[in-house]
């Protein structure tokens, strides 16, 4: 079975979904991500779905679950890069993905996370110490 890679960039875990989201893949991603958040102690998760043509109700619900699980593990989740066609379909289906934060692209997603949690963007070296000091270790 194919797996979606989870990349660690600074204090953020980046997940870029490039394959078809089958139910198994989505469930696997949910587990992998929870493990990685605990292992790395990251406080932000960005899920890039710009390559996805279809987001069905199951994937939508999985995304919501991932967001909820991450929040319990003290990490904020942002879904970025949703295509217009996908957004329109979700609205027509009446799925508004409550509880999921969204941003237009990865860059804006990182900005949003930085603002929300006073994180530093990964390329900001000058504040790294302060961020390290204020962040409480993940459970």
């Amino acid at each position, binding site marked *: 079975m194919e797996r979606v890679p989870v990349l660690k960039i600074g204090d953020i875990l980046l997940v870029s979904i490039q394959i078809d989201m089958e139910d198994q893949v989505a469930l696997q991603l949910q587990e992998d991500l929870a493990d990685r958040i605990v292992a790395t102690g990251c406080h932000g998760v960005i899920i890039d779905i710009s390559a996805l043509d279809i987001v069905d109700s199951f994937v939508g619900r999985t995304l919501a679950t991932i967001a909820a699980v991450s929040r319990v593990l003290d990490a904020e989740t942002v*879904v970025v890069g*949703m*295509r*217009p066609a996908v957004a329109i379909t979700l*609205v027509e289906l009446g799925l508004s993905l409550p509880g999921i934060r969204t*941003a*237009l692209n990865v860059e804006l997603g990182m900005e949003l996370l930085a603002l929300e949690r006073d994180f530093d963007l990964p390329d900001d070296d000058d504040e790294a110490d302060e961020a390290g000091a204020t962040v409480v270790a993940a459970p």
Partner: protein
Amino acid sequence: MALSTDEVGRFAGLLERGGDTLTAAWTEAVATSLRGRLSHAELHRQLAELQKGFQAALAEGSDLDGDAGAELRAQLNELSSTRARQGFTATETAVSVFALKDAVLAILDQGEGADSTALRDYVAFSGFVDRAGLFTFDSYVRAREELISDQAEQLLELSTPVVKLWEGVVAVPLVGTLDSARAQVVMERLLQTLVDTGSPYAIIDITGVPAVDTQVAQHILKTVVAARLMGADCIISGIRPQIAQTIVALGIEFGDIATKSSLADALRHVLRLTDAKAARRGARRGV
């Protein structure tokens, strides 16, 4: 009414013999009905060609729908679509074909004498021309309908611009009635622009929308929710007093969507939000 081979042959011959005299008579008849909106020379050229078409079609058989009539049909099609685009009426277009009967009758009167064969021939021929005329009419209507659908499409394109208002802020000034088709186009275009420009804020200005009913509100709400799903925030502006009253009377809930009375207010609101963001970031960095 189908023409017998005999009749067909005689008529093809008649059209050929008639030649220029026939064309001239035909042109004259059509020119009167068009009242000089098409030049005489132009008309003469068109009709001479059409006459050749009739002649060829009749020489091969009397069937307008079959292979023999294909050339003639193409000509009639061409004629009616040009007329439709030039703004002639359906009658004026059909008369161009029907006038051939008058012209032929004139020739018949001069030459062959009015015996019973000639009369029967004429009636049969008349039937053929009638069918050609009806075909012209159909083509004319089809050309008109194409014209209308083209224009409707152009209107759709024209009426939904998405403009960049500020760095990271786009606006959609909606003008005219918002039906499902237009709402769909607006939604698609707005969302695409958000992706292309990476703008996190969009302002939907409904100053130009004459009336807001539940359906229009539904369309606007859908657009806002879709934009939110993509990570952009929408502000609705340009709500006139009357429209505000209607919205309340209809019980339409905009929920936590920001609504402003003017585009300027909406822009100010967005700039304040972005300022606040920048300030927070600056404060954090500045420590």
